């Protein structure tokens, strides 16, 4: 029997991986992207025109905008508020739709299916334009000054209720992935359909769809640029404004692209962490 010398360190399990496997697992893409963004940032800060463009988006000279009781001070913040509020709407309303989509009740099923197919049948951009230039002005005409919805709020609601249709399908597939025996076991104990959904099916289904739901948060962040079309002063809109004032398209749009990349990277990292946590729990 071979005796290991005293105090020799135990080989860690990780070191069993070959060098190329280690290289494969390390998130090189993120390192390169972060490094690239950092270099871009330093370069931009050294250039007064880029500094001006970034400043215009991140720290605007003038007004603030109220959206759902939140005081939005600049384009960056408007993008974040748009994304998060729309996502919360989509999460909640999408869940309701997803549950209706698996319902045996014909009214609930067909109403939700109609909604989902309508929303998914219209490009998000068209939907936002339609809400911004048709629905909100029409309602405002009807209700007069009492109408509580600003353009910005209308656009955010449109994005949220549009995304709800996509999330509904994610929830639905999650619910359908739970074995039929779960519902039967709950019902056999005397629990009603709604109780069984709430306590047995949904907790399992939602756990299963956390990764795709998180991915849709990143997708929504990028789609939030669409609300610029109805002049919501978010990152892209502020960049357009800057370009139209200064005619410096390069600096304006490069700055917008830079900011979106920073945001999506941050979101993706958070999403990956959530996924990893989830996989190790499951």
């Amino acid at each position, binding site marked *: 029997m071979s005796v290991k010398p005293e105090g020799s360190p135990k080989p860690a399990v990780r070191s069993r991986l070959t060098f190329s496997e280690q290289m494969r697992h390390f998130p090189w893409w993120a390192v390169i992207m972060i490094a690239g963004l950092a270099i871009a940032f330093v370069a931009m800060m050294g250039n007064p025109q880029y500094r001006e463009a970034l400043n215009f988006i991140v720290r605007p000279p003038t007004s603030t905008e109220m959206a759902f009781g939140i005081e939005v001070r600049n384009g960056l913040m408007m993008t974040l508020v748009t994304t998060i509020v729309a996502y919360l709407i989509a999460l909640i309303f999408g869940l309701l739709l997803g549950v209706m989509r698996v319902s045996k009740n014909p009214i609930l099923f067909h109403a939700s299916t109609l909604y989902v197919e309508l929303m998914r049948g219209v490009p998000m951009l068209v939907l936002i334009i339609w809400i911004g230039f048709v629905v909100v002005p029409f309602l405002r005409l009807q209700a007069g000054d009492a109408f509580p919805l600003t353009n910005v709020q209308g656009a955010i609601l449109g994005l949220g209720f549009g995304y709800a249709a996509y999330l509904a399908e994610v929830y639905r597939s999650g619910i359908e992935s739970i074995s039929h*025996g779960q519902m039967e076991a709950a019902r*056999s104990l*005397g629990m009603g359909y709604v109780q069984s959904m709430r306590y047995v099916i949904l*907790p399992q289904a939602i756990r299963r769809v956390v990764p795709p739901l998180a991915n849709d948060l990143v997708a929504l962040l990028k789609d939030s640029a669409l609300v610029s079309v109805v002049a919501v002063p978010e990152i892209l809109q502020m960049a357009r404004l800057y370009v139209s004032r200064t005619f410096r398209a390069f600096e304006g749009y490069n700055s917008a692209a830079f900011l979106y990349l920073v945001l999506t990277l941050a979101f993706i990292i958070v999403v990956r962490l959530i996924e990893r946590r989830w996989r190790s729990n499951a």
Partner: protein
Amino acid sequence: MPDPIIRVVELHKHFGRVSALNGVNLEVQQGQVVVIIGPSGSGKSTLLRCINHLEKPTHGHVFIEGVDLEAKSTNINKMRTEIGMVFQQFNLFPHLTVLNNITLAQKVVRKRGKEEREQVARQLLERVGIPEKADAYPGQLSGGQQQRVAIARALAMNPKIMLFDEPTSALDPEMITEVLDVMQDLAQTGMTMVCVTHEMGFAKAAANRIIFMDQGLIVEDTTPTDLYENPQHERTRLFLSKILH
């Protein structure tokens, strides 16, 4: 004879073109332990699932303590609390601990307080022989342990009837007896039980009645000893020779 606790009248069940039950009549008295056997596809599960209305009959009626499950005025959820069901695949709730598997329906259906329902759950876990698993998750248990939890979960509603659909078919051989022992104990307490099982040892030891089904009909309805020693029908004889080797 007193009114039967389960009365099945002219029960038919069709799935599209497939007919699973073709006019089943059955009465089960309070405290009886009935074993149902029969070839695959003969309608055993369908009959059991009609008794607690997981399947809606195409024709015919099921009466539980005289209440017609088909009647519009019947509160089916309330009726189901009187009928426990144990499934072949256990169907435990994987996201809940063993304790919460047993307390969930007590909470949302029976509206029992936390202390009471946990006490009930722990007593039942004691009874099925795994009190130490209260805080484990179903995925951490063996098949036999999971099935015993499933039995405890059903018993927690204080049902008057227990239905078992091949409770040991998904188990490794060495775990079958631990589940059958629990069922046998339950039979001794006077529980009304309807069990689809081909465990003949259990049928002989615990059942006072055995039913042979074939092609959606009850072919033979007798006592276990009679069935083995003196089967009335050729079909029964053939089937028994297959399962008894």
